[in-house]
């Protein structure tokens, strides 16, 4: 046999040939036509590869001695290589078709990157065998056959080819595939026989051996065993059940690493160890299951509330008489004009005189519309219309009698209210006519006589017992106390304040001037100086002008406090305001100022306010700095005696009206056996100092009737706060109205702050159709929310023209 082979020795003269020289010799031999070569190798590199010079002629290379690394590398399909013993690393590297038989063990890197051909190993192999092998569709897949076991990291990145590991005399009989085989495998098959220690499950999978596979295996096994001359093993190795087959996972299978689902982990591991409900199942029974972002019902973060009339309208809150002005506009809108007019009578006996003419209308000053540059709804229009208000129905008398001293607005208000509630009020007044300063001092230019007369007549029909022209002394009060259940002092401030100046006898008081002016009983000179530039001073100036004065000067020590109609009218007649001016002396020439300047005057009127005349009060009634001291309910230090109006604290007419109403309420409550301010109607809370802005209140004087006190007091009886104007949507109203034509237009343009207009915009805007209007008894109704539909978006609150809807945080859970 040997004689058939052309022998090439790996050494010459006892010296090992370089791999390059041996390669040259082999290539030359093939070129020279030799087709059977015997290489006596001495570890040279790459023996047997690249024999393409033989073309399609088969070339047989037998390697004896020590085959080096990469035996048969870049092998060509014509080549058959037989290694007669073991082989070093990388046998069959990048083999492109050679058949290589190794009659011993193979080292590391067996068949790395092999693409075609076969490697038959008769023993075990080292690590990283069959790595990066591939299969080109143009050729048969490469095959690697191993009789024993393979080393670690077998088949890494294997992309094709077939590997057969027979497990005969395996180096590692417990694990014929070695450590971490088939990582990164993307193609090919691995038949193996014997136990394995696992392989990359992400890349490869065990599959059943099909009949076709088995047929291929048995047929080729015979060839393999023949090549390695171990056909004796055929019978042992063809026991089908001993074989297993691994194949690569397809790309679409690779992502699907079979791991336990978290749900399964929760149920079978987590809850099993911790108990039902997991980590905190023992600490809470709250539902913790997931919810969507926009839940309804109980899981809403916010809940809309139809807070109809929860807050006062700003007009109502600003009115010292407490008239719900917006409610009157509602009645106008509803066509109930008579009711709108009559409504005011529950609050004031002077709805026309005061609301329509004399009041500076704090309601209008407070009107929400102004924050959007719109003119306020004109209360004076409905005020003037209230002249038509009829006499209210009067209840039967209770038998309780109250004496009211003074018929000014405060006294009339309290008497009016007491009578409306069924108690008899007897007015005592020194003056000829009812109305106090309204009747006696305020110029007719400001209040038409027929309006005042008409309202006073209405009052007379209600307050039937009037004793006029009664002066009052201290002892009279004691008598009255015996005759009446309560006494109310409302004598006002009638004593003009004056100044202790040289020449003060030349002064005329404003009250004297205005009282005389009403009957044209005074003739001012051409030049009139008024000391004190308030609204009364303005009235003096206006009346003086009417009566012929030409030059009108109002002086004050500070910026004039005059405002509104009074000031407008004074300025219209040419009154000049000067300040600060400190008067030193009054002379025949006029007013001498501290600066030495003389303001020439024919008539000098002093108008620096009035103080109460308290001389008639008994000792039992305490006073404070010239005014009567009263409690929160206008009770004096004598519990049977109350005091209201300017004798308690100077204020507007409407302040006096309001104080009268509140005092009447307190008296009625006492008569009914209640404690005023303590027994509050249901739903009303007691006065709480925390609700009062401390900046505006002197805590030491909280009992005192200060002007701020009215505000607090309002809170005591009606604890509702004024609505936040920002809640009202004024965009619904026409901003170009510069003047209201009539009460109907006023009503249509009133935003009805805090009180439902029944417009239904909330129903329309609700994206969930969760809001509906539910009729109640009569004309009453309410808007209700279906919690199961509502998502708490607050659109109702945003769209509501009146600011009725409010969005509140839902009830806390788990606290």
């Amino acid at each position, binding site marked *: 046999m040997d004689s058939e082979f052309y022998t090439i020795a790996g050494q010459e003269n006892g010296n090992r040939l370089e791999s390059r020289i041996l390669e040259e010799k082999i290539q030359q031999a093939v070129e020279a036509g030799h087709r059977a070569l015997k290489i006596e190798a001495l570890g040279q590199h790459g023996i047997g590869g690249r024999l393409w010079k033989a073309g399609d002629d088969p070339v047989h290379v037998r390697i004896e001695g020590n085959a080096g690394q990469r035996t048969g590398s870049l092998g060509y399909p014509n080549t058959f290589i037989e290694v007669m013993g073991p082989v070093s690393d990388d046998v069959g590297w990048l083999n492109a078709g050679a058949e290589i038989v190794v009659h011993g063990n193979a080292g590391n890197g067996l068949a790395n990157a092999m693409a075609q051909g076969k490697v038959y190993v008769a023993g075990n192999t080292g690590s990283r065998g069959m790595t990066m092998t591939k299969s080109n569709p143009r050729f048969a897949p490469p095959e690697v056959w191993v009789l024993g076991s393979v080393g670690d*990291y077998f088949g*890494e*990145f294997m992309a094709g080819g077939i590997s057969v590991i027979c497990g005969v005399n395996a180096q590692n009989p417990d694990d014929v595939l070695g450590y*971490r085989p088939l*990582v*990164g495998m993307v193609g090919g098959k691995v038949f193996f026989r014997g136990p394995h220690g696992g392989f990359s499950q992400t890349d490869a999978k065990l599959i059943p051996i099909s009949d076709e596979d088995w047929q291929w295996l048995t047929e080729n096994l015979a060839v393999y065993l023949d090549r390695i001359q171990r056909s004796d093993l055929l019978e042992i190795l063809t026991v089908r059940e001993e074989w297993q087959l691994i194949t690569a996972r397809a790309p679409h299978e690779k992502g699907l690493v079979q*791991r*336990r689902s*978290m*749900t399964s*982990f*929760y149920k079978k*591991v*987590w809850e099993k*160890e*911790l*108990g039902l409900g*997991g*980590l*905190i199942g*023992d*600490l*809470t029974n*709250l*539902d*913790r299951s*997931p*919810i*969507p*972002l*926009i839940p309804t019902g109980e*899981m*809403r*973060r*916010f809940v809309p509330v139809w807070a109809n009339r929860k807050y006062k309208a700003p007009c109502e809150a600003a009115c010292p008489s407490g008239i719900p002005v917006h409610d009157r506009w509602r009645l106008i809108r509803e066509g109930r004009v008579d009711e709108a007019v009559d409504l005011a009578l529950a609050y004031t006996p002077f709805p026309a005189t005061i609301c329509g003419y004399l009041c500076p209308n704090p309601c209008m000053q407070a009107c929400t519309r102004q*924050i*959007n*540059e719109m003119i306020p709804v004109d209360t004076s229009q409905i005020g003037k219309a209230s002249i038509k208000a009829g006499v209210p129905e009067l209840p039967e008398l209770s038998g309780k009698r109250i004496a009211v001293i003074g018929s000014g607005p405060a006294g009339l208000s309290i008497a009016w209210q007491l009578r409306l509630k069924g108690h008899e009020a007897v007015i005592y007044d020194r003056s000829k006519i009812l109305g106090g300063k309204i009747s006696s001092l305020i110029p007719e230019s400001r209040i038409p006589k027929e309006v005042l007369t008409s309202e006073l007549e209405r009052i007379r029909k209600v307050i039937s017992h009037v004793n006029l022209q009664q002066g009052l002394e201290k002892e009279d009060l004691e008598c009255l106390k015996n005759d009446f259940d309560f006494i109310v002092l409302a004598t006002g401030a009638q004593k003009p304040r004056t100044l202790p100046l040289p020449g003060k006898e030349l002064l005329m008081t404003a009250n004297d001037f205005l009282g005389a002016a009403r009957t044209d009983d005074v003739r001012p000179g051409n030049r009139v100086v008024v000391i004190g530039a308030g609204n009364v001073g303005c009235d003096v100036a206006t009346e003086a002008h009417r009566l012929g004065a030409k030059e009108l000067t109002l002086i004050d020590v500070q910026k004039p406090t005059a405002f509104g109609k009074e000031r407008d009218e004074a300025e219209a007649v040419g009154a000049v305001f000067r300040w600060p001016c400190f008067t030193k002396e009054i002379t025949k020439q006029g007013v001498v100022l501290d600066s030495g300047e003389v303001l020439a005057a024919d008539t000098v009127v002093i108008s620096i306010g009035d103080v109460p005349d308290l001389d008639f009060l008994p000792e039992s009634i305490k006073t404070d700095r010239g005014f009567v001291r009263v409690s929160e309910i206008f009770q004096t230090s004598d519990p049977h005696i109350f005091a209201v109006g300017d004798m308690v604290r100077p204020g507007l007419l409407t302040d006096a009206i309001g104080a009268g109403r509140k005092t009447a309420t307190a008296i009625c409550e006492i008569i009914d056996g209640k404690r005023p301010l303590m027994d509050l109607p249901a739903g009303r809370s007691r006065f709480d100092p925390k609700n009062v802005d401390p900046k505006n209140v002197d805590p030491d004087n909280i009992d005192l009737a200060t002007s701020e006190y009215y505000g607090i007091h309002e809170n005591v009886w009606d604890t509702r706060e004024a609505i936040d104007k920002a809640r009202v*949507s004024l*965009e*619904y109203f*026409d*901003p170009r109205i510069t003047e209201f034509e009539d009460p109907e237009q006023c009503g249509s343009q009133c935003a009805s702050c805090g009180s439902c207009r029944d417009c239904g915009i909330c129903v329309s*805007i*609700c*994206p*969930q159709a969760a809001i509906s209007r539910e009729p109640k008894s009569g004309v009453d109704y309410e808007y209700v929310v279906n919690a199961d539909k509502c*998502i*708490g*978006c*607050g*659109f109702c*609150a*945003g*769209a509501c*023209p009146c600011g009725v809807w409010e969005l509140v945080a*839902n009830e806390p*859970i*788990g*606290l």
Partner: protein
Amino acid sequence: MPSNRPITPSSLSVKDLPWQIHWNKDKCTLCGSCTAVCPVNAIELGVFRKRIVETELGINSSSSSVFKVYHGVRQKTDPAYSCIGCAMCSQVCPNDAISPIKSDEAGKLAFHINRGGQPRRRGGRRNVPGGLLDQIKFIRISMLTDPALDAGRHEFELRTLLGRVLPPEESIAHFKSNGWIPPVREIYPLIIGSMSFGALSPPMWEGLQMGVAYLNEEINMPVRMCTGEGGCPPRLLRSRFLQYVILQIASGYFGWDEIIHAIPKMKVDPCAIEIKYGQGAKPGDGGLLMWNKVNKLIAAIRGVPTGVSLPSPPTHQTQYSIEESVAKMIQSMSMAWGFRVPVYPKISATSTALAVLNNLTRNSYAAGLAIDGEDGGTGAAYDISMNSMGHPIATNIRDSYLNLVALGKQNEIPLFAGGGVGKSGNLAANAAALIMLGASGVQIGKYIMQAAAGCLGSETDRCNICNIGLCPKGITSQDPRIYRRLNAEEVAQRVVDVYLSFDTELKKIVAPLGRSTSLPIGMSDALGINDFNVSERLNIKYVV
């Protein structure tokens, strides 16, 4: 909004706000979802009046002026309701009609959110995008010089040691004399840092714990999570999952009496005890859980009555020096479990870190040192603490490591780094950089909140309302109406995903270094940066 209104010094316009709501009238369907979901009520339905003047071409007929009213979404400008940019409105909008846009200039809000003299507080992050860690490159790609490994194929032992490792001679001597050998845990180097039950919502906390347990038991990754200060649910204390838990004790000691009661019933020891002395987000400041968050559940876990505020002092009150802290706290906590559990302190990164570390090196009970850098997150802190206080982590960990090297103890006392790790999303790169600078492991907080639960913070002052219980994703809320948006199982699954992908990325970094069986702790020759001064300071290569 009335146009002609008086203004106050703090009257702001939409333009002044840091986040501006862009609302598209054409697309909006007025469904109410955006206003319903907005966590801070920054938007509301508005009524708008529109005026149209109609004039004919040529003015042949009289013109008219018509008002129309329309409804739409309006942004509030009151600083108390300013948009936080969370974009939950965008999330719920069916028509993509609304989204917050970051203002194109510095917002004016910052000057006004101190009403009543109360400086702004927030949760979340420092809001400084980017940072040093993101600039560090891994420049050593071994290829032929070391056996280059393949991250996909090769097996890696990406584990680290938590615990004191004695020098070999001492260890042998102790072993021979049956002396005490400090406990050491072999754990995954990415630790979920301390976030308390209370700071986090129930599903978030449970989800994190569940994910950690899954990683340990289903994937064999020894991941650990620190409880934060606020106790530990009793069931967890009595379960085998406790071995995956690092219990934290901080200056408020909340929940610790419950833990003591549970010790006799514990099946396993906890992984370790972390003593919190400081945190990176608010160095020198204590924690505060507001009373309104202390509901029945939180109260039960912390062992307190409901409805009381739970402040933690800025320091442990009975300790006045490092020596005292080490002597008292570490020993006390070691004794609790019979010296079987590693105990280590956590401090905020500080210029005084070396003083702490040097002390720890002299105390064999100290199992390590965790340092939390300035970029750490928090549930609640003053702006001033978050923005301006603290120390960057890179130099602090580097100095500490080099100090250990100088002492020859770099393999004996592990350093753990935290604070802004992965804040720009580069978790593996940041973690690897810190490890190669000398950390034995890193702690993450914000990253896991973002990745596992969709936290919306983004270093641009977006959202950042962890402190007020209104977390839009339900991560930091105790209100079931909010936290039920979050599903614990889904959080757990995300934790698993995060760790698996992190693992691959970390391998991609360390494989080219030829490292597979030990973390490249302190292997700073692999690091480079294109900033010369930084390279000098960190003692790493300057590469351009």
